[in-house]
């Protein structure tokens, strides 16, 4: 248990290592999106009533708010995976793959949170994801 998964070359990452990092980040976006839905549900006034609460009862309300706690647990897993993935690639290149999360969050918001779907939102998300993909290409033009 004294070692962490690591490539022999820490700083000069190979193409294979970068690709591995990209795949790791992409699969983590599912966790990231589920975390957002859980946090949103946990923060809703129905789950977390903050009115007239002192600090102690507020902290107690937060740590016993299971969707919020579960959401942050997912978010924590997502963050740890990011740390490992970020070792392998350029920040501006690995980070944007997280953009897939925008698609999952939007779809899950429509489905589970009954947000109002419309074409402005859909087009906006598509353009954001395209923008992030192009931004990721920027690392190649050196």
């Amino acid at each position, binding site marked *: *248990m*004294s*070692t*962490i998964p*690591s490539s022999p070359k*820490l*700083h000069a990452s190979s193409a294979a290592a970068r690709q591995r990092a990209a795949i790791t980040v992409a699969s983590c976006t599912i966790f990231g999106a589920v975390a*957002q*839905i859980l*946090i*949103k549900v946990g*923060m*809703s*006034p129905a789950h*977390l009533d903050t009115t007239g609460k002192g600090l102690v009862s507020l902290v107690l309300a937060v740590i016993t708010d299971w969707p*919020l706690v579960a959401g*942050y647990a997912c978010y924590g897993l997502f*963050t740890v995976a*990011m*740390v*490992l993935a*970020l*070792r392998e690639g*350029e*920040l*501006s290149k690995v*980070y*944007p793959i997280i*953009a897939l999360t*925008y698609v999952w*969050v*939007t779809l899950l*918001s*429509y489905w589970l*949170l009954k*947000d*109002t779907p*419309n*074409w*402005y*939102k*859909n*087009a*906006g*998300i*598509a*353009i*954001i*994801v*395209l*923008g*992030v993909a*192009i*931004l*990721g*290409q*920027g*690392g190649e*033009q*050196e």
Partner: protein
Amino acid sequence: MTPLMWRSMGLVFFAAIVGSFGSVFLKMGALRLNKSILSFVNSRLILGVGLYLASSVFYAMGIRGGELSVLYPLVSLGYIFTLVWSKIFFNEPITRYKVAGLCLILVGVFLVGVGASR
């Protein structure tokens, strides 16, 4: 657009800025990792995680007051800051592709904002 919606959007935008600093410190910390598990205990990684946590508190307060399908996309505005910090701290080049990508992100966020008031 109600005042509550503006407040929610402001909180999420601020969270995105704090989060962009978080990524920088996570990257700095991650570069210092070696084969020892103890290398996870380094000041930059801890600061990075701390900034992420702080960011998520503002974010959680923000999404309380509006639709997630509108507020979550605002997080993408953090890329603007990430690009600048990547140049300053890691000397990563700002290329035309990156600038074009950022412009598209701004257009996308604008459209999602328009969708919010429908």
